[in-house]
């Protein structure tokens, strides 16, 4: 039972937490604010917070000059595609490990996790070489496959933990009720697994969207997603704060929104069930 606390203490908590929360959030807030300023206001001294002439110019310029939509589209395809591919491969695997466990299931799961811990830089050149040989460098297909592979262990793991929460007795009941394996999966398992699959999809879109090793190293102009688009602003000629902010805001906004919906799943997905 939670106990009542004094209003005074609650006020202190609230003020403290909001203060720290806003401090942590401030860089994002500042970026969003700056994206609506003119370049001159953006570097004004002293800095201007809220009282300036709000403008959408930066967003228009970013789109016109650097073809933002193309990078966005690459990000969408790569993040969405790798997640979809991953789910297709992972659902049957997670299903079988959760409902028909064998003596080796645990070892297989742990081994799959271990592949996630392989440092990317250790296999950078071989992948680079394979990509060149197969003509996959700077292609969306190649990047989609790589991101699918690096996130596959997390997808399988998350689905596995969700499936394990579905009581085996319910599937047995379906079997007793005369359902074939296909009907069992279609009518009973899938509807019950949808929330878990949805969370898994969400978290993986976020991870794939923000991935910044392979996306930087395996793309050039054609297939570059938003991570690479933003990185191109690090060169001196790209130094316009307001435009940088507008580009950044557009790159992070979709994921911030998805991310807020998936905070709970984040813990499960990223700790592999080690913290409950």
């Amino acid at each position: 039972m939670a106990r009542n606390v004094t209003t005074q203490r609650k006020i202190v908590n609230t003020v403290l937490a909001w203060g720290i929360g806003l401090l942590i959030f401030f860089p994002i807030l500042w970026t969003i604010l700056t994206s609506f300023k003119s370049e001159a206001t953006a570097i004004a001294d002293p800095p201007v917070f809220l009282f300036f002439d709000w403008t959408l110019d930066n967003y228009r310029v970013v789109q016109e000059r650097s073809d933002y939509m193309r990078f966005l589209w690459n990000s969408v395809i790569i993040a969405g595609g790798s997640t979809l591919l991953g789910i297709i491969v992972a659902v049957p695997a997670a299903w079988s490990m959760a409902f028909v466990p064998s003596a080796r299931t645990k070892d297989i799961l742990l081994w799959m996790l271990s592949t996630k811990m392989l440092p990317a830089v250790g296999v950078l050149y071989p992948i680079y070489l394979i990509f060149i040989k197969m003509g996959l460098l700077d292609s969306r297909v190649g990047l989609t496959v790589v991101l699918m592979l690096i996130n596959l262990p997390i997808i399988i793991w998350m689905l596995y933990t969700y499936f394990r929460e579905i009581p085996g007795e319910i599937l047995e009941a379906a079997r007793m009720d005369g359902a074939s394996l296909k009907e069992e999966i279609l009518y009973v398992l899938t509807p019950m697994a949808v929330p878990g699959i949805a969370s898994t999809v969400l978290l993986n879109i976020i991870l794939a969207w923000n991935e910044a090793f392979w996306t930087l190293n395996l793309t050039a102009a054609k297939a570059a997603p938003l991570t690479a688009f933003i990185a191109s602003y690090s060169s001196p000629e790209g130094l316009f704060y307001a435009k940088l902010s507008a580009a950044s805001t557009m790159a992070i906004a979709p994921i911030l929104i998805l991310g807020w919906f998936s905070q709970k799943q984040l813990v499960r997905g990223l700790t592999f069930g080690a913290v409950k």
Partner: protein
Amino acid sequence: MATKASRSAARLMMAPAVILLLGWMLVPLCMTLYFSFKKYLPLRGGDLGWVGFDNYVRFFSSSAFWPSVIATLVIVGGVLAITVVFGILLAILLDQPMWGQGIVRILVIAPFFVMPTVSALVWKNMFMDPVNGLFAHLWKFFGAAPIEWLSQASMTSIVIIVAWQWLPFATLILLTAIQSLDSEQLEAAEMDGAPPLSRFGYITLPHLNRAITVVVLIQTIFLLSIFAEIFVTTQGSFGTKTLTYLIYQRVLESQNVGLGSAGGIFAVILANIVAIFLMRIVGKNLDA
């Protein structure tokens, strides 16, 4: 518990995932291992034959090796210390009753969802720029000379940026762990006469033990291979060349694949040492 028919179906359904991951792990790793024993310069003659452990000797004895190890350790250690300590404090604060808890939670978690290139660029330009950055304005406001963050305090800057990105992760996991603590345990301790600080020390902290270990291990694995934050800010100069960045430069910038591969194998071994500890914790939980 199952029948034979479902067992063979299960094996079949697992096959694609297992084969894909096995390929993804073995093929590149074997290639890296192979290259690490060769003198291999793609732009300057290609495969120049076997050299035994030469690449390893050269990688470990190069003047860049030890500084890169130290840079890596400083970043990993600094970020871990900041995120764990502040993560615990924040988690405890967020667990207290207050108004607008949900919104504060969202504010605190947000940095985790910002892509690394964005956070690096925003910090680099809008906060740490010695002329137009907010920090510069702040320093001037108090009459101090602005700091050239990314050259004068390069490591501190990188640690700040990365810690800002990972603090939400640590907080979220520690908060989840705190919330799973049975409040009756704390009440029992209170009845037993333990003051708040002892309750934290004897009940809360031991309860968080495992969560802290998990945070440390997972973050270590990710932090060992941070790349974009350095790529976008200092490009490895001013003493911020980590092991990952050093290997990246050997392989893609100077195109010395043999040397880079030797470093890559070293990085794999290093990550595996951390991974083993993580696996043991995860494995124990699987049995429960």
